[in-house]
């Protein structure tokens, strides 16, 4: 059960407000910032009973190795989603946190903040809720954690007036995520932030009022490095792509070689290209761009010398999801290239996404994600259904069984 002595060493946990939490206190030691210390300090300062209750319940979970929350339904006017409702299963025992709801708030694309907005958010939240915030949830929401049902509407109203809106939950569009993108990254092949904002504004109704078969996620990564994990975690992954040749600054290549040596060039660049598209040439390198698969590796190692081409846009990969039922699904290449420079390009994406979601909503089963529907119904029917052309880019190899039907 551990000795609480080592804990509290950060100076917290000595207040009078909280009940003892010996097991949690064990998580106060060590160099990594402790969420326990944060919670305790917050509780001691604000004296919010809900915080004391939630600490007690968490301590009880640590002791019994079981969770004690159950779901429910809370929402705000006109919305059907955005609040994750939690009631305690042990409220008889620990009544102070009998409710502990979370408000999911859509963060700014790229998670770029200024301190003014953020302080505003903190103030409103401290006023109505516990003051505990997750930055950010795995889907990219700001999660305001710990509020009572009857305070949700007023909290939301106040937030909304400051420009904040609720994120997704349930069987609808979910909150989007985008990488830092063109704001600070040289690899960005399209404007992840702008696209994220525009697209999610289009789907805002579907975020707030879920009515599809199941959830649907979009993530926006500026290049195939995929810093938002889009390919593994979104029904449509929007990934930056270029179609022409990698831009090479020959003198910067030379500089790199001077600095790092030929051995490193061979071992860490040439040899690691997955398709061996890079060869040595005149003390520098030559890239066979027709054979480049846009993996990003050489650009990552030599960012000063190599950059994505000039004809830039996005690739769309579809069907990623987590383990449920079929096991993890990785997103599959469906649209290898699409321009993404103008408003119209974004509109075109939105049209396609609408088409895809309609198809999925019509053809999918209950609680079936896009990737599952595509696999069950077949890629061919999916492409037919949404009006896309089949292409060799969609497969790692053509089929190996004769089980297809074509008439001639």
């Amino acid at each position, binding site marked *: 059960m551990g000795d609480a002595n080592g804990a509290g060493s950060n100076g917290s946990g000595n207040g009078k407000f909280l009940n003892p939490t010996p097991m949690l206190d064990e998580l106060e030691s060590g160099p990594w910032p*402790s969420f326990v210390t944060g919670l305790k300090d917050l509780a001691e300062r604000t004296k919010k009973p809900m915080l004391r209750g939630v600490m007690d319940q968490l301590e009880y979970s640590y002791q019994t190795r*079981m969770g004690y929350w159950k779901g429910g339904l809370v929402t705000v006017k006109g919305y059907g989603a955005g609040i994750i409702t939690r009631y305690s299963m042990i409220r008889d025992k620990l009544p102070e946190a009998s409710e502990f709801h979370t408000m999911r708030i859509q963060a700014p694309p790229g998670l770029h903040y*200024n301190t003014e907005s953020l302080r505003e958010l903190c103030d409103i939240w401290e006023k109505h809720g516990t003051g505990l915030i997750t930055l950010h949830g795995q889907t990219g929401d700001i999660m305001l954690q710990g509020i009572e049902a009857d305070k949700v*509407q007023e909290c939301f109203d106040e937030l909304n007036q400051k420009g904040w809106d609720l994120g997704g939950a349930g069987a609808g569009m979910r909150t989007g995520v985008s990488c830092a993108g063109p704001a600070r990254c040289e690899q960005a092949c399209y404007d992840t932030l702008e696209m994220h904002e525009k697209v999610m504004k289009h789907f805002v109704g579907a975020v707030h009022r879920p009515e599809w078969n199941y959830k649907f996620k979009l993530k926006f990564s500026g290049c195939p490095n995929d810093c938002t994990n889009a390919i*593994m975690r979104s029904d449509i992954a929007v*990934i930056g792509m270029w179609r022409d040749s990698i831009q090479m600054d020959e003198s910067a290549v030379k500089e790199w070689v001077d600095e790092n040596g030929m051995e490193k060039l061979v071992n860490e660049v040439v040899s690691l290209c997955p398709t061996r598209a890079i060869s040595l040439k005149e003390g520098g390198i030559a890239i066979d761009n027709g054979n480049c698969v846009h993996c990003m590796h050489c650009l990552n190692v030599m960012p000063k010398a190599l950059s994505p081409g000039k004809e830039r846009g996005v690739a769309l990969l579809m069907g990623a999801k987590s383990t449920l039922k079929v096991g993890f699904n990785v997103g599959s290449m469906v649209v290898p290239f699409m321009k993404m420079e103008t408003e119209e390009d974004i509109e075109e994406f939105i049209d396609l996404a609408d088409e895809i979601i309609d198809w999925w909503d019509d053809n999918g089963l209950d609680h079936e994600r896009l990737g599952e529907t595509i696999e069950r119904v077949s890629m061919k029917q999916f492409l037919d259904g949404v009006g896309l052309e089949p292409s060799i880019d969609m497969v790692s190899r053509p089929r190996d069984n004769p089980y297809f039907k074509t008439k001639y």
Partner: protein
Amino acid sequence: MSSPERNWKTVESGPYPYKKGLHPVMQKNYGKWKYHEYPQPGVLKHVAESGDVIYTVRAGTPRQDSVDFIRSLCDVADKHADGYLRFTTRNNVEFMTPDAEKVQPMIDDLESKGIPVGGTGKTVSPIAHTQGWLHCDIPATDASGVVKALMDELIEDFRGMNLPNKVKIVTQCCELNCGGQGDIAIIVKHTRPPRINHESLSEICELPKVVARCPVAAIRPTVVDGKKSLVIDEEKCMYCGACFGACPSMEINHPEYSRFAIWVAGKNSNARSKPTLMSLVAHGLPNNPPRWPEVSAVVKQILEAYREGGRPWERLGEWVNRIGWKQFFEETGLTFDEDMIDNYRHARTTFNQSAHVRF
């Protein structure tokens, strides 16, 4: 819940406007960045076509933050970064400044507040994790706690840049895997079928939905004490807990029998090799709060073997791919067992369909 008379309209605005959050230098050079460098661990230097430079200082957070903590981050931003800050997709916070001089004072300020600087380049960046006992309705553990305990031990790999490549770790409190794939993943694995609470079942759950949720069709309708209920075919059930996600009466969580499995070689990026799913390499580890030492030990074993054997730029899975799984087990000291042989859909595609074998 009744709210007072409203004299405003809800604006369904969607994402918070990002433009407000861009440092002026980033606004000016938007889409015109040329390259980046790593001047020192925890610091990025981005250079724009215009010649402008922006430095980023990256620091760790507990993810479950208090407003006080966030306000103190704002203080840092106001003092050293012109009032701007951002968060990464991996729960780090980043402060941007065009001024090289401000970097070190900023780092000192952060560290003095107990906020570690690091996580750039070839490091262990903070562990992506999920809700756990603090909030979720189905967790078997507390992801935040597992992560805090482990990050305490890995902090030097967060601060340094002495690994073959980035190591992305994830931790999740049930098999739904809200944290996705990682180079190393720590995930709850149940080891007994759910215990059905026949009392509450028909009252709080939609029976057909629960039946439909089971991946192996192990749940059948039945009648218990005159009430409609469900029964589990324990031969078929493989303890995934999916039914529990649909219905709290399918009690899968257990202090002793809900355990941990460790997975490796997940990769999301397209760099060099295609993205890969992670593979099971250890299981049956106890769910041992408050510091889960058994879990940390296995993760460290894996990390050390990778540090030792990986070549520059090789992600963990790429290293394994090169040396072969047999050597992975040898070098990490873990033990391969029959449960690690796939028996689910597509199982055959993971078999060694060749005479290729190492001795």
